[in-house]
C-alpha cells in the first residue's frame, strides 16, 4: 500500500540530502488519519486500535519510510497517552494526531546502555540540563521526551519543548542517513514532568513494551521486503548459465531468511494480540521482548544476506541493498540493542517464574 506513496527513491532522497524526512508522505499519512489511529478521539485521534497501528508499522517497514512516525507515534504519542499530566496530553496529542507536531524521545547520552542510574541529565523541578545523543528525528521534533534525575536523585521522564533558545541541536552523522539523528543539549530548558520516581520506571517499561511491538512490526516489514528483493534477484540473475537461485548456496540462504522471518511474524502476531487487548496484559512485556528479539534478528539477517545474494552490484551506492542494510541495523538499536532485550526477556521470565 505504501509502496505507491513511498518508493525506495524517496528513501534515497533523504539518504542523499540534508532533509529530515519526506514531508509529502508525512502529510499524506496525516491526511489519511493514520497518525492518530491509536490516539483517543478526545485528543484528536481516530482511536481505531493498536492492531491498526501494527499494520501501519509493518507497511512503513516494508517501504523503509523516511518519516518520523516511530518517534512521534510509537513512542511520543504512546507515552503521552499514559501520563497523568493532562496539560501535556491536551497540548500535544492533537498535534501529533494531525501531524502538526513531531515528537521524539531522547534516552541515550553516549555509547553504552542508557539507564536512569547513569543519566547525567538533571531536572530541577522546572528546568532541564544535559546532553542527549543520538536522538532520532531530533532535528525535526517539536518536543522531546527524555530521561533525567530530579533533585532527590529519582528517575523522571520529562517533556521539553524543542523550539526554545535553551535547546541546542545539531545533526549527528549515523550509519543510516535516511533517518536523521541529532545531538540535543538542554541548558536550563523549560520542561515538564510526565512521570516521577516509581511511576517513571513504570512508564519506561510501558514505553519499551509498546514501542517494541511496533518497531518489531516495522522490522518485520523490512525483513520481508529484503527477502523479496533477494528472491527476485536470485531468479533473474544468471551465472554459469543458470539462475543463481538454482544454486543451493543461494537457495538455502533464502530459506534461512524465510525461516527467521516466519518466526518473527508469528511472535509479532502474538505480541499484537497482547498489545491489542483491553487490559494491560501481564504477558505484554514478555511478548514484546520476544517479538523485538526475533524481528531484529530477522531484519538484520535478511538485509545482510540480501547484499550477499546480489554480489558486487549489491555493494554499490545505486543499489537499494544498502538502504535495507543500514535501516535494519538502525532499527535494531533504536530502543536498545538486542543484547539488552535478551537480558530484559530473561529477567521477565524469572519474574514470571514459570519460564
Amino acid at each position, binding site marked *: 500500500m505504501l509502496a505507491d506513496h513511498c518508493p525506495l527513491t524517496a528513501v534515497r532522497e533523504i539518504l542523499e540530502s540534508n532533509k529530515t524526512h519526506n514531508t509529502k508522505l508525512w502529510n499524506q499519512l496525516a491526511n489519511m488519519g493514520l497518525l492518530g489511529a491509536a490516539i483517543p478521539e478526545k485528543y484528536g485521534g481516530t482511536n481505531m486500535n493498536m492492531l491498526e497501528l501494527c499494520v501501519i508499522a509493518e507497511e512503513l517497514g516494508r517501504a523503509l519510510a523516511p518519516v518520523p512516525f516511530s518517534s512521534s507515534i510509537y513512542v511520543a504519542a504512546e507515552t503521552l497517552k499514559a501520563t497523568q499530566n493532562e496539560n501535556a496530553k491536551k497540548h500535544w496529542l492533537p498535534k501529533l494526531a494531525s501531524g502538526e507536531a513531531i515528537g521524539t524521545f531522547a534516552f541515550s547520552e553516549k555509547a553504552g546502555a542508557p539507564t536512569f542510574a547513569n543519566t547525567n541529565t538533571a531536572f530541577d523541578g522546572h528546568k532541564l540540563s544535559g546532553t542527549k545523543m543520538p536522538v532520532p528525528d531530533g532535528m525535526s521534533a517539536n518536543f522531546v521526551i527524555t530521561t533525567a534525575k530530579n533533585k532527590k536523585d529519582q528517575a523522571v521522564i520529562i517533556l521539553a519543548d524543542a523550539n526554545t533558545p535553551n535547546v541546542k541541536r545539531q545533526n549527528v552523522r549515523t550509519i543510516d542517513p535516511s533517518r536523521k539523528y541529532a545531538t540535543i543539549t538542554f541548558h536550563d530548558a523549560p520542561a515538564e514532568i510526565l512521570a516521577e520516581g516509581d511511576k517513571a520506571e513504570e512508564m519506561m517499561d510501558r514505553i519499551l513494551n509498546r514501542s517494541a511491538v511496533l518497531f518489531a512490526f516495522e522490522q518485520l516489514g523490512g525483513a520481508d521486503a529484503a527477502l523479496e528483493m533477494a528472491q527476485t534477484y536470485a531468479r533473474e540473475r544468471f551465472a554459469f548459465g543458470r539462475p543463481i537461485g538454482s544454486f543451493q548456496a543461494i537457495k538455502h540462504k533464502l530459506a534461512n531468511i524465510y525461516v527467521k522471518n516466519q518466526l518473527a511474524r*508469528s511472535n509479532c*502476531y502474538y505480541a499484537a494480540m497482547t498489545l491489542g487487548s483491553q487490559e494491560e496484559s501481564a504477558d505484554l512485556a514478555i511478548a514484546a521482548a520476544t517479538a523485538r528479539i526475533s524481528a531484529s534478528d530477522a531484519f538484520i539477517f535478511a538485509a545482510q544476506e540480501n547484499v550477499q545474494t546480489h554480489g558486487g552490484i549489491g555493494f554499490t551506492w545505486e543499489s537499494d541493498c544498502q538502504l535495507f542494510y543500514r535501516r535494519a541495523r538502525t532499527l535494531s538499536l533504536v530502543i536498545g540493542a538486542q543484547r539488552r532485550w535478551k537480558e530484559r526477556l530473561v529477567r521477565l*521470565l524469572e519474574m514470571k517464574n514459570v519460564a
Partner: protein
Amino acid sequence: MHLNDTPQEAAFRKKVRDFLNQNAKPKDADNLKAARAETRESEADGLARAKKWQKKKAAAGYAAITWPKDYGGMGGTAIQSVIYNQEEAKYHLPRGYFEIGLGMCIPTLIAYADKETLTRYVKPALYGEEIWCQLFSEPAAGSDVAGIRSRVKRDGDDWILNGQKVWTSGAHFSDYGIIVARSDPDQPKHRGLTFFFLDMHAPGVEVRPIKQMSGGSNFNEVFFNDVRIPDSQRLGEVGEGWKVALTTLMNERLAVGMGESADAGDLLEIARDLETENGPAVKDAHIRAKIAEWYAESQGLKYTKMRTLTALSKGETPGPESSIIKIVSARKMQDIGAFAMEMQDMAGVVSDGELSPFGAAFQQQWIWAAGFRIAGGTDEILRNIVAERVLGMPADIRVDKAKPFRDLPTGR
C-alpha cells in the same frame, strides 16, 4: 491467529474433555518425568494398552475425525481433529502405534483401492486390530525418495517382490504395509514404479530392527525374498507408483512427531542450580542471552503452529511452509542439549539419570536430535523444499530425470 475457540469449537472441546476424563488419567505437571516413565514400559505392554485404548477411541468416533462416516470416520473438520489431539496430549495415553497406518496408509487406500478392499481393511485398522506400516525408504533411496531399487516382476496374477526397505517404523508389530517398488528399470526413475499393499506376515518377509546411535530401536530393515503379492493389492496403475507415493508423502511431514524436549525454560531452571566459576549460572550473561534466543525461537515455533491451525480452521491446507518447524526445532534440540551439557561442565558427560540434572534429559536429547535432523527429511532437503516450493527458486539441476533408471550412476 487462532487462540480462542469459536462457540462450536468450544462445545466440541468440552465433549472431548468429558470423554477423556471418563477414560484416561491427566498428565502430571512434570511432563518430562512422566514421559520418561512411559518410555520405561515394555513395547509389548505399551502395544496392548494402545490397542485397548484405540478400540474405545474408535467406538467413540475420535479415531478418524476427518474421515467420511462411510469409512467409520466422524465426518468432522481438520480443526476438530487438532482440538482432539491437543486435548488427548494432556492425558497419559499410549501413542505411536497407529499414526502411520491411519495417517498415511489407509488414506492412500481410500484414494486408490476398491470398495471390497476398503470394507475388509479400514475398520480393523481404525479399531487397532490390525497395524499398518509404510515401506518407502531404501538404503539407496533416502533423501532421493524415488531412487528405489526393490524390484517387482509380474508372474500371472501375482507380482514377485525382491529387495530391501529401511527405516520402517513399526514394521515389527505391523500386519500390513504399503510399498512402492520398481516394476520397470528401463523407464526413467520416476516412471517405472508400482505401488502395492502387502501382508507383513507373508512368506519371504523378514523384519530386522535397526539399532540406532541412541541405543534404542524404533526402526527396522525389512527384507523381501520372492514375496508374492496378488495383483488385486496393487494401488494405482502399473508404472504410476510415484504418483500414488506422492499422495502418501503429502501427509508425512505432519506424521513425524517431535516428542517432548527440554527447552529454554528448562535451561533457566537448571541455571538456577548450577555454579559457574564466577557464581550462579543464572547470573551469567552468556547463558542468559542463549536462553533468550531459544525462548524467542520456541515461541516463534509455537505461534507458527497456531497460525497453521488458523489456516486449517479457515479450511486452508497447510503447505510446505510447515517444513520450517522441523528445521528449527531439530537443530534447537541439538544445540540446547549441548549447551546444557556445557553448563554442567565436566559432569556434562554423565548420562546416568540418577546423577545428571533433569534425569539426563539434555544428554538424551543431544543424541536423539542428531537423528531428528535427518528423519522425515534432512535439514538440507527441507531447505530445498522451502526455497523451491515456498520461495519459487528454480529446482536443482537434475541429471536423473530422463535416463533409464538402470543407467543411472550409483555409489555405495
